């Protein structure tokens, strides 16, 4: 029974041991940054507040999202028409509001995506047009700062 439990734990959370950020950084991978470049659209995969240490709950949820982004999304294909993508939106929401609220917002994004693309403005980013629906557009009514 104990081994079964360990096996299930490894199956579900083993990917947390993988370093998803390993491929980032390295020589020649830096972005060209203009002196006054508009920073309102952070590059995909980056977060605005990298100094903040995530809580264990956040790490688990971000690990799940990282697993999806690294292993499932490349096979599944680029299907999210929004910017940030749904997984990145959930990642940012978890970073900003914690694991629980972030997850709820992530599920909410998946539900409201189809009507949002009729209303959201389009932006040209990563060589394609996307519907701009950031976290700020969905928490403005309760999160002021």
């Amino acid at each position: 029974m104990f081994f079964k439990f360990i096996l299930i734990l490894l199956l579900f959370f083993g990917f947390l041991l993988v370093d998803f950020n390993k491929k980032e950084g390295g020589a020649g991978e830096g972005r060209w940054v203009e002196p006054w470049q508009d920073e309102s659209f952070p590059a995909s995969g980056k977060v605005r507040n990298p100094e903040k240490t995530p809580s264990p709950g956040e790490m688990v949820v971000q690990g799940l999202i990282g697993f999806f982004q690294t292993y499932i999304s490349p096979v599944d294909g680029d299907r999210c028409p929004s910017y940030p993508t749904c997984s990145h939106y959930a990642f940012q929401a978890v970073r900003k509001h914690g694991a629980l609220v972030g997850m709820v917002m992530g599920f909410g994004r998946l539900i409201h995506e189809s009507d949002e693309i009729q209303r959201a403005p389009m932006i040209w980013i990563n060589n394609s047009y996307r519907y701009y629906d950031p976290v700020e557009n969905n928490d403005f009514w309760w999160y002021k700062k």
Partner: protein
Amino acid sequence: MPELRPKDKKLIKKLIKLFGVQLFVLLIFFYSPSAGLSAEGEKVSVDAKLQMDLADHFYQEGDYYRAVTEYKRFLFFFPRHARTEEAQWKIARSYFHGKKWDEAISASDNLIKKFPSTAYQAEALLLTGLCFKEKKEYSQARFFFGKAKEQAADAPTADEAQWQIAATYLKEEKWKEASSEYRKINKSSKLYLKSERFAQGLDRIHEIPQKSPATAGILAAILPGSGHLYCERYRDASIAFLLNGAFIWGIVEAFERENYVIGGILTFFELGWYSGNIYSAVASAHKYNKKKKEEYLDHLGKGGLFSVGVFFQGKSPVLALTYVF
């Protein structure tokens, strides 16, 4: 001291001659007037006017970063020039247009401190207020707009400051205060008609169709999807209903067949869909309200409502009727 042989003396003389010729050639090369010329033979000397023109050129091109550099270069090279005040003011404006609010505030403050009787004082205060408005620090913004209004030598700047005071209340959705501030705009101002339109429109802002976020949330909690339906988001409503329905069905089936692991996993995801559905419904109501307000205010700004007003052109009164269909 031993005497040199004639052969050695000749060699030394030759060397001195050769060295002298080389020195002469080098001197001619370095000190020739053509050495200071560019490849085209054009001599460029930068004076205060040229430096300011270069900075203005960058400013007009919208390259505010370089404009600031050139205005600062002007201040460094010509610190006692008559146009230093202008350069300092243009630095503040460049920062403002470059959306560097804190730097613009600091540059405006510098201008006022260095030149207490500057002609740009009211404008600098107005610019500081605008920066605070952009930073969403509305009470600070109002403080500076008020000061700008007091200091303004001309009516248009004072009217602009008054307009901005009203605009900060508008941003804060304090409709009554905004309406009353719009009404303070001088009747002879060019902004008068527009401000009257805003004042009248804001008195009727409660007539805008709104959705209750609480109703949307309760509906979504009772029947997933109905909250979105209430907010006129029909696709979202069907997705929320189908997703929740499918997962609840799956959970019931899994537990009925005593498949507790699958049931547990489905319950975990269903909790996400259910709470996400409620959150999204409430957020949709807020978004609906926000959009309607923005549309209404946009309409007011463009003059989309009927308005009657009297304003003065010089000393003669002009009656204006506006209606945009």
